[in-house]
């Protein structure tokens, strides 16, 4: 599996051509309506005083998403902003802070961040959530932040997001541990009849 990254940590990541030039940096990550995958990035210029760019980066133009850079073939890959932004406006504020419910109707928490797979897939593999107390057993902390995998089916409607109930058995406290949990979650799913 490719490296997992939190979408918020992608902000300020440089956009680098295979020719070695940094042409922009990530401003925001844009997801599709079902929060299934990354559709693109809005960009800002590099440096302290540079503001948002008119151009954006659609996902198909990404060569690879890595922990230290978003690689593109050349600067021609950047598109005019409206392509990506239209989706962003529909999406913004929807996933973050959305309520997470299981398909059995239990509230799990609220979304703090979206965990994506790097490389060429751009898939959303899970969420970092502020969990409700009942989810994290033994914890007395008021708010507990955990990673929870997404299921194969994921419904996002209005302000809530529904994940399979058994996904809550695969929560992890940090990103490295989450990598193992995600694989375990998918293996567990292959074994159980739906």
């Amino acid at each position, binding site marked *: 599996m490719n490296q997992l990254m939190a979408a918020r940590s992608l902000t300020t990541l440089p956009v680098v*051509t*295979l*020719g*070695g*030039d940094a042409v922009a940096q990530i401003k925001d990550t844009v997801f599709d309506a079902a929060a299934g995958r990354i559709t693109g990035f809005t960009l800002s210029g590099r440096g302290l005083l540079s503001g948002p760019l008119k151009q954006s980066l659609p996902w198909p133009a990404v060569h*690879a998403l*890595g922990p230290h850079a978003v*690689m593109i073939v050349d600067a021609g890959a950047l598109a005019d902003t409206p392509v990506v932004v239209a989706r962003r406006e529909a999406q913004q504020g929807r996933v973050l802070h959305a309520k997470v419910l299981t398909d059995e109707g239990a509230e799990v928490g609220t979304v703090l961040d979206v965990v994506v797979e790097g490389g060429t897939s751009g898939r959303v593999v899970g969420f970092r959530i502020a969990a409700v107390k009942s989810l994290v057993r033994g914890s007395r902390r008021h708010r507990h932040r955990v990673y929870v995998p997404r299921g194969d089916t994921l419904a996002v409607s209005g302000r809530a997001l529904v994940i399979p109930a058994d996904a809550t058995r695969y929560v992890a406290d940090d990103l490295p541990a989450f990598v193992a949990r995600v694989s375990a979650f998918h293996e567990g799913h292959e074994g159980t009849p739906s």
Partner: protein
Amino acid sequence: MMLFSQARGLPVLTLTEAEELGVLRSLTVDATAGVVTHVRVRGRHSRKESVLAWGALHALGPDAVLVRSATAPAEVPPHHELPGLRILTETGDWLGTVQDVAFEPDTGRIEAVVTAQGDVPADRLLGLGDYALVVRAG
């Protein structure tokens, strides 16, 4: 085999008059082709930097660089200083920074890029820009 760090600082002289043009400051590399294309020379007194095409060199020896002609090339590509530059793989991973570059002084062919994590062979080089040296993931 020679290192950029060894070539740097060598006196540059014309072959016919043995006139000293200055010292070798840096080497400009075409990463895709894997060759040194130009050398940059800084004058001893004027401190002005001039550019010579690799083809204008007669020999790059252990103690001096001899050039056939000191005329500047018509077209000078942008120079990106390799030593100290960060290295990224095409998958967006960090591979450290360039410590030195090993090259063949007869042909100008790059052999490897030296990093703290080991050598990166020249055939893995993809591109060289103002931000990074991009290499194929190994």
